[in-house]
């Protein structure tokens, strides 16, 4: 799969304070659900990405392929590698279909 790259038309930022809260809650074993940690603005509409989605998004800078992204996330999360890879692949496929990610 080619290296995914964020569409430069999309304005985004990491909501750092929120992300820290979500990470703290996760460490405490709480359910963080889909709490948004990355904010995207696309043509005036706002969207949010959850913790994992946000971490994948941050890494979609055109320099990494999905396998590398999954490998980096594997360091952060105690989740089975195959499962992580499937999450990354699905995320990239979905956001590419929306035009939010482009092939590098």
């Amino acid at each position: 799969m080619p290296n995914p790259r964020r569409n430069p038309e999309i304005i985004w930022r990491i909501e750092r304070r929120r992300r820290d809260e979500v990470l703290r809650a996760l460490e405490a074993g709480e359910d963080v659900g889909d709490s948004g940690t990355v904010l995207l603005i696309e043509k005036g509409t706002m969207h949010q990405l959850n913790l994992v989605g946000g971490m994948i998004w941050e890494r979609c800078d055109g320099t990494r392929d999905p396998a590398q992204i999954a490998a980096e996330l594997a360091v952060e999360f105690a989740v089975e590698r195959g499962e992580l890879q499937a999450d990354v692949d699905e995320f990239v496929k979905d956001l590419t279909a929306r035009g939010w990610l482009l092939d590098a």
Partner: protein
Amino acid sequence: MPDITEMFSAPLTFNWTLSYRCNFVCEHCYSRDEECEELPTADLKRIVDVLAEKQVPFINFGGGEPLIRDDLFELAAYATQKGLNVSMNSNGWLLDRAAAERLGAAGFKSVGISIDSIDPLLHDDFRNMPGAWPRAVAALDHLQAVGVRSTMSAVISRINHHAFRDLLDLARAHGVGQVYLHNFKCSGRGFKNRQELDLSPEEWRAFYVEALAVKAQTTDLKISFDDPVIASLPGYEEQGLVKGSSCGKLSLHLRPNGDITPCGFIPLVVGNILKDDFDAIWFDSPVLKAMRAKEATGKCAGCSAFADCLGGCTARAFATTGDFNQPDPHCWK
């Protein structure tokens, strides 16, 4: 809806008044009587550093007239290089071809020109500046020629509320992609001249019903409103990022000396961006907190639209009553 600060660690937009100086004296202007120390370029760049560090994505320069300051281009280029998206609103007088090129080179994402009427004499009279209209229209053409996205702004008032369609046609003819039909604010000269310029609540309702119908049928032009009171109209379904006024929630305003106010029309300083801790202002300011948690008061209590309208424009309520929670004086309910 969760608390705004749970979702947003900083506003999305800073409306930035670099200077209250202007070459015009418009009848509706909020800022003609304002005076304020202006900062040197180095301090303005320090402000950009704070905005970049807080990840504020958009800066919109307003005023006063932004082009009055020679360092506008340098500042905008600096902000662009830091990843911010820069736009501005201008009366167009100083925006010749050379200025348009410099705006493009500085990375401006869009530039808005204020035009109140398609009648040149009416526009010039309203703006107290003979010859303003042709220069404003020429500014749109210069922007188009150099490939900078242009927008057009009109403050809706008694002089143009029946003629907004003509303004849309003017925009089309000059390559404008988006038209802002701003609600009339009762601040500064807008407050003094409000008897002559402001519409009655019923007239506002009629204007919005008509303008929303035109917007629904228009595909070649984006038409934008910034008036929360339209949320009470039947069938109005547009979902903004937040309910009610966006001031203090999605946007803040900077004065020339770095003081922060919730918006340009609310003269309450909540802190200074170079002197105070920004997070403390954003998360803890009692004024911002009060604006984000308005309480239904007077006729708003019991109004079925309150959940969407939140009492309408907070600046207008505050200007006329001194209380954020009072109903917007434009409300027709």
